[in-house]
């Protein structure tokens, strides 16, 4: 599905990623862990197409296509979803309107007609139920006045609506209490199929109790310095990152 080869990226002239290699196949969950400033969020931003980051070197292929040549919106339409670490507020724009616009943009790309209003409302209802979020949330403006936990649940709800092939969860667990964490993790697990994949970026092992990874990668100073199975996460929890350097 996704092949990253020797990826180098920078922001404001500062090199952050210094040669990332990673392959993700359908049906897999990859966890990326590492200390602050190791480049975890940069990796997710580059994959999602944030133009603030400049790619200096390397290749990324997504189903054989050159991902780096694609606009951010086309990456989304091709099935890449980023759950933001800090979801953005858009005052005055209702979640319903926002989601409907997004769903219809995806449909247009696939050559489909806009979704009928009744079908859309049913889809919203089904997905809200699936991820178990408060239905009041979708009557409000996008992320406006949402608590930290509500924002993260809202990200998972959007993910359910758009049914991505590759989901990138950027520190989705940060700022969540244990109940919210469970809701978010359950949502992710329910959306998991053998045909899609997830990259879970996290600081803590805690999330991986709920979302069980097939692979754990340790990112440090812009490079993956160690890869292992899910037990690696436990080891990191116990020993920290220093022993790997």
């Amino acid at each position: 599905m996704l092949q990253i080869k020797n990826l180098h990226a920078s922001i404001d002239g500062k090199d952050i990623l210094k040669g990332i290699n990673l392959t993700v196949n359908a049906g897999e969950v990859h966890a990326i862990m590492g200390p602050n400033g190791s480049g975890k969020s940069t990796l997710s931003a580059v994959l999602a197409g944030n133009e603030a980051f400049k790619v200096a070197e390397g290749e990324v292929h997504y189903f054989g296509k050159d991902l780096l040549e694609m606009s951010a919106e086309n990456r989304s339409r091709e099935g890449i979803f980023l759950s933001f670490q800090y979801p953005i507020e858009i005052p005055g724009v209702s979640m319903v309107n926002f989601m409907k616009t997004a769903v219809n943009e995806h449909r247009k790309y696939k050559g489909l007609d806009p979704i009928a209003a009744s079908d859309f409302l049913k889809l919203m209802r089904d997905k809200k139920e699936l991820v178990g979020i408060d239905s009041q949330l979708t009557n409000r403006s996008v992320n406006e006045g949402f608590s930290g936990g509500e924002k993260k649940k809202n990200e998972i709800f959007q993910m359910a609506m758009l049914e991505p092939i590759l989901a990138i969860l950027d520190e989705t667990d940060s700022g969540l209490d244990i109940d919210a964490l469970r809701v978010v993790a359950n949502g992710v697990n329910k959306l998991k199929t053998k045909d899609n994949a997830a990259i879970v970026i996290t600081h803590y092992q805690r999330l991986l109790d709920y979302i069980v990874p097939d692979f754990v990668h340790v990112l440090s100073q812009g490079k993956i310095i160690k890869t292992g199975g899910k037990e690696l996460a436990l080891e990191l929890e116990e020993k920290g990152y220093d022993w790997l350097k």
Partner: protein
Amino acid sequence: MAIDNDKIIDDVTQSEYKYGFYTDVETEMIPKGLNEETVRRISKLKNEPEWMLEFRLDAYKKFKAMKCPNWAHLKIPEIDFNEIIFYAAPKTKPTLDSLDEVDPALLETFNKLGIPLEEQKIFAGVAVDAVMDSVSVKTTFKTALAEKGIIFSSFSEAVQHHPDLVKKYLGTVVPSHDNYFAALNSAVFSDGSFVYIPKGVRCPMELSTYFRINAANTGQFERTLIVADDDSYVSYLEGCTAPMRDENQLHAAIVEIITENRAEVKYSTVQNWYPGDKEGKGGIFNFVTKRGICRGESSKISWTQVETGSAITWKYPSCVLMGDNSVGEFYSVAVTNIHQQADTGSKMIHLGKNTKSLIISKGISAGKSQNSYRGLVKVIKRAENTRNFSQCDSLLLGDKCGAHTFPYIDIQNDSSVVEHEATTSKIGEDQLFYCNQRGMDTETAVGLIVNGYAREVLNKLPMEFAVEAQKLLQVSLEGSVG
């Protein structure tokens, strides 16, 4: 996103003004230039009674003694009145009752603008007065309205058929010496709409006037007078467009509204005059005086405007709250792009006790434009227990535009409460990226964000207009984000 800035400017230049066409109809004009003879000639062409001519001549005298106002945050080039044609009318005589006698070219023009004049085709519930250049072409649903005693006609007709009403109210809200452009309009106004809603009548449909400047080198000077008698209600809409031309054209209008006891008037405008090209060449100079007076107790006037056009906009729809417990409201979205300049806002003059006013202003600046809010809230000593709340928000797109706020507050008693809030924000790259990541291209994202920002005001528009206005916002800002 610096690269995008150039792309944007390109896009703006490409996103064409949809209504820029010109209709080739035979037009009757008077010689260009402004003098006493011009005023007399217009009055004569309209076959006006003596008192109307006197009103005009008096206004012209006052106009000559006045100077173009320079206090606004606008760069106004000198206007050469001797180069303007003050009266131009499509030659086919507009007939009042039968559509068959209207020039097909005119019908086609209004059809192209999305304003069909065949009554059966019009949105259910909207009556239209269509004004091209200096005259009213056709007023629809007149008979249906007349059954309820509602008068909805062109201004010229009202002068002929209802001289007493016109005489009683004309110039009582905006006197001819009010300001430079009001004096000019009072001297040379050509047509416009007249509305009278009798006591206790709720107008069953939206009334609307559609203004179209067509002929070259002409100015448009229309006048609207709306009188709502005791316990009546009307919702009134106004729309406007003009062809694309290299020279600037002047539009100086007056709107007067009078509400008697417990009457309510809702006045909505979607202003889309030609804004000029990407170099700032051409476009309409829009100098408009709009004012309503709540004469009766517990009466209400509400202004809603969506302003996207004109090279220069100078207008301050205002309410004089004379009756006790009366209410004034102003909701505005003003968009400026390319080289447009707008200085717009509202005045709320509290004269009666327990009067209330609300101002919600949303400015959106893009390109190299300048967008100013200017507002006055005045409360006299006698106007006890009045309330005002003003909110002025500015949204900036790009870094070559400007947003300014000039609030004036004058309170002469201590039982009144006046609040003013203002914010300035930019569409963030993070907001755009968030939308992009959900599959929306940047244009769609900007449209969504801007409509969200303006929602409070758009919600106030009648349904038929709200959808149009949303699209208009999107088109006006096409490609304007960097």
